[in-house]
């Protein structure tokens, strides 16, 4: 239940502005891939193109191919909604639906699409997803309470549970821990380690220790200057990115001698 992603010659534009230039990357199934790089270098923009979430932003468009197990996400007639059921996403700030209970938040992907689901199957799905997100023990007695009453870290894990409840092939995470304290971060990182048994995980992070801790492979993005497009500088095993980078820019960035 996971698929690989191959990106070929991908350019991302905002209107006429080229935001990310010429990315080629191959992300293995059942692995954790981290994107690192300075702010504004297009990591998040690129991540969004992997499930066509960039289309929500006005004027954003791409050129090139993103292949999900060989199927081009940008092929003619491909429905972005179908893409997003296969490639889930977790955002920087926890965003549980404020009008829904914890249980309904987990079931949101099912209920919002008006799919019929029996109560037993729904209960099983809620438990499975919350267990999968390491949240079950904390919330099992208060499933009918609103999701916004949880702590930030719990909310973020609820969002992850919500994302895995629709059983995607790939999970994208856009700085999932940047709004969390170290203990919640640890909980989410442990979770990412477990998720890779079943899912392909791609994570954007500003925290290089985090990238080193959780990822199998790391991609370093950089930008030449304001107004210039972001580029993929180096993509390799995490250990070699941090210990033995091939590019000077990567070495400068991971050793903190950047800029």
């Amino acid at each position: 239940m996971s698929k690989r992603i191959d990106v070929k010659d991908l350019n991302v534009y905002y209107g006429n502005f080229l935001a990310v230039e010429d990315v080629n990357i191959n992300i293995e199934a059942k692995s954790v891939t981290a994107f690192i790089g300075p702010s504004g270098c297009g990591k998040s923009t690129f991540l969004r193109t992997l499930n066509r979430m960039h289309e929500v932003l006005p004027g954003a468009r791409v050129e090139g191919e993103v292949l999900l197990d060989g199927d081009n996400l940008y092929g003619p007639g491909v429905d972005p909604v179908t893409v997003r059921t296969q490639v889930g996403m977790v955002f920087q700030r926890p965003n549980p639906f404020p009008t829904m209970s914890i249980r309904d938040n987990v079931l949101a992907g099912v209920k919002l699409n008006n799919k019929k689901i029996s109560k037993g199957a729904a209960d099983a799905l809620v438990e499975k997803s919350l267990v999968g997100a390491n949240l079950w023990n904390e919330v099992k007695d208060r499933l009918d309470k609103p999701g916004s009453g949880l702590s930030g870290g719990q909310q973020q894990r609820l969002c992850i549970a919500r994302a895995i409840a629709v059983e995607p092939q790939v999970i994208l995470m856009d700085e999932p821990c940047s709004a969390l304290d170290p203990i919640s971060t640890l909980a989410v990182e442990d979770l990412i380690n477990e998720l890779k048994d079943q899912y392909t995980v791609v994570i954007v992070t500003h925290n290089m220790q985090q990238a080193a801790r959780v990822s199998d492979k790391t991609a370093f993005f950089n930008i030449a200057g304001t107004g210039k497009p972001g580029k993929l500088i180096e993509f390799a095993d995490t250990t070699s990115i941090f210990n033995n980078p091939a590019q000077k820019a990567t070495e400068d960035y991971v050793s903190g001698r950047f800029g």
Partner: protein
Amino acid sequence: MTATAVRKRSALTKGQLPKSAPYIVLAVALVVGAAILALIGFNAFGWGLVSAILFAVGLVSWSGAVEGARKAKDRLATCLVVGAFLIALLPLISVIWTVLVNGIPGLITPNFLGTSMNGVTGAFDNKAAEDGAPVLGGIYHALLGTIQITLLATVISVPVGLLTSIYLVEYGNDRPLARAITFFVDVMTGIPSIVAGLFAAAFFFAIVGPGTKTGAVAAVALSVLMIPVVVRSSEEMLKIVPNELREASYALGVRKWRTITKVVIPTAISGIASGVTLAIARVIGETAPILVTAGFATTINNNVFGGWMASLPTFIYTQILNPTSPSNPGPSDQRAWGAALVLIILVMLLNLGARLIARIFAPKTGR
């Protein structure tokens, strides 16, 4: 030296006026104000005004002498803010008081809410004024008309206004059409209500026939006034729904229209509902557009689509302007004030309803 400090005035609070200073100054100002007014002829309004000025001058100069310039300025600002608040409150309280005093006798008249003006002639009013007989007649027909017309106007305006605001916020993207709609909605907000009434009347004269005056025509006129208010308030409410929630929904593979109906609107529903209620409150007291569209009736008309119809504002208007008994306008005045009180109570209930709705639909918090 012992460790226990001697209770004394703290050095940290040196140079401050006592907490009771404003009350002392107020008492002095009231007494001095009364004395001044007694010299030139006492009246309550002048007493309040003179006392307020004396209070402000007295407190600020005392504070300036003891506490220094900064504190004195602070006291002056407090005086101005409280003064402005009282001035703003004055007409409100005065209105409520006047309507209560004049309206309660009408409201507690037996059958005031349950009867219409059908068959109530000047002879009855003359008898009531001269012999002390009970005031006959009531506002049942007008209350019924107001409720029917406003309800129909709401039924027309809410779908149109809500869908327009959804278009503007979710699909508009600053397109020329969206900008044009925003512009015309703004223009519509400023339409004088009589013009809206004339529009509805002319519209129905053209498509149904000359002289078409029914509750439905009035409802259309009120819709013209209501729609921009509903559009504006719903638009603001939809705009403050965080984009993150929409993105979260899209990322789960939910279609846009489902995201709107199941995530965006439920999140904003409390604000939308209270906006709609306030829009209703805004049009329920309209008089002019109803006079030219629904005419006026003294009898009960249950059919909003046929025949002239009374409403509370037009009832008040005609009772004051054309008393049932021209020689004894007293009973008509009493009925008009009673109707005004009922109208205010209706609006107040609507506002309370809006708060209740907002609370019921508000996103749940708590653990």
